[in-house]
């Protein structure tokens, strides 16, 4: 049972998704705490897979733990750390624990992380990973060996609307769509014009591909600068940086800017929701969601 699928495929509701903080210790209590904080606002939350090439608690076990505390996971699998065998076993492991939503992505390179000396795998790429997940969902492994009954997956992928080659990004999104992706969570984007061109282009050819653009909550100009300098594929226009820097309260101004980006994104064709990455970890998430017109839902725990 996937609430995300239910909402995206059988309703016109706007969905909100987020990133679950990486688990590095703190045990189940930390998972419970974060689940309680996110559950009122989000329909489903990403269980990440060694984000930014840093080792953390695994994607599958994090997704299982989230589910225990009533939070619907979107389990990410990246191609950097695992070969095609391990990726298929990740998918089957997810299915064993009733995890339906998968998001398949390339992943940052090992050189982006704190263990750049590691071997990079990339045995398959993200489009191939989506296609393999679809094949599993049709009842066989990549080798052709049957799986009975077939696992039930709701497949997603990621695309960066704002990175070159711009025109080709639409084609690549469509390639993932043909491979089996039903929804796309888009990379953080500070170029409304590029996002608009991308969403229009995709919606024209694949109107039933659900687009979920991402906005990021950062603390101020420094956070924006970090995004621009350190996160591969993200460019922050100078005008945005200057606007936040010059503001009397940069911390407030950056939220204002993010709200503008979020509201614009929600008006675009094909857009069915918003993904929120929170690097502030303060109470601004609640006010941000309120400003977007969301009301918190009561939490239900199905342990």
């Amino acid at each position, binding site marked *: 049972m996937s609430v995300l699928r239910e909402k995206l495929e059988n309703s016109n509701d706007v969905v909100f998704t987020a990133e679950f903080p990486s688990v590095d210790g703190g045990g189940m209590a930390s998972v419970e705490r974060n689940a309680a904080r996110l559950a009122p606002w989000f329909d489903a939350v990403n269980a990440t897979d060694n984000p930014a090439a840093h080792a953390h608690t695994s994607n599958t076990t994090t997704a299982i733990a989230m589910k225990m505390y009533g939070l619907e996971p979107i389990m990410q699998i990246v191609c950097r750390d695992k070969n095609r065998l391990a990726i298929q076993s990740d998918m089957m492991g997810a299915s064993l624990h009733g995890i339906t939503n998968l998001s398949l992505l390339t992943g940052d390179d090992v050189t982006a992380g704190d263990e750049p000396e590691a071997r990079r795998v990339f045995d398959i790429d993200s489009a191939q990973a989506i296609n393999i997940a679809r094949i599993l969902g049709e009842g066989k492994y990549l080798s052709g*060996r049957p799986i009975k009954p077939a696992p039930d997956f709701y497949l997603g992928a990621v695309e960066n609307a704002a990175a070159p080659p711009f025109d080709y990004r639409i084609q690549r999104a469509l390639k993932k769509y043909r491979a089996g992706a039903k929804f796309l969570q888009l990379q953080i984007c500070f170029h409304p014009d590029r996002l608009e061109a991308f969403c229009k282009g995709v919606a024209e050819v694949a109107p039933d591909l659900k687009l979920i653009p991402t906005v990021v909550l950062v603390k101020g100009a420094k956070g924006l600068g970090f995004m621009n300098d350190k996160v591969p594929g993200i460019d922050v226009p100078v005008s945005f940086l200057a606007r936040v820097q010059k503001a009397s309260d940069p911390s407030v101004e950056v939220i204002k800017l993010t709200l503008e980006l979020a509201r614009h994104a929600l008006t675009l064709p094909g857009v069915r929701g918003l993904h929120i990455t929170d690097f502030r970890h303060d109470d601004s998430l609640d006010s941000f969601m309120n400003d977007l017109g969301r009301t918190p839902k009561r939490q239900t725990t199905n342990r």
Partner: protein
Amino acid sequence: MLKKLLPFVEHALKAPVWDCRMCGQCVLHSTGMTCPMTCPKTLRNGPCGGVRENGHCEVIPEMQCIWVKAYDRTISLPLPKVWKQHYNELRPPVDMQLQGTSSWVNLVTKRDQQVPGGWSVQGSEH
């Protein structure tokens, strides 16, 4: 004899021009005569999300993203139309068993078209 000689000849010819990595399943013609195996992530189906604002690689900042190059070349080079159409195809995972063998031989014997038993591609952009 020929089986041993051909990979040597192929590498000698293709390495200086395309930085050929001898994957044994050449797709140069469908990627704007740009070798995807020179991508640090060896991506066969398009660029990752980490391409820099100047079109350069996330991993090797001084190198143009091979998929930016492939896209430009697919549009601008006078390649046969059918090759251009191949550009958006979903290419299957690399067959590691072919590493180091001659893609010319594998093309003739159609060994390079063998895919895992479960592999299938739905729809088509043509």
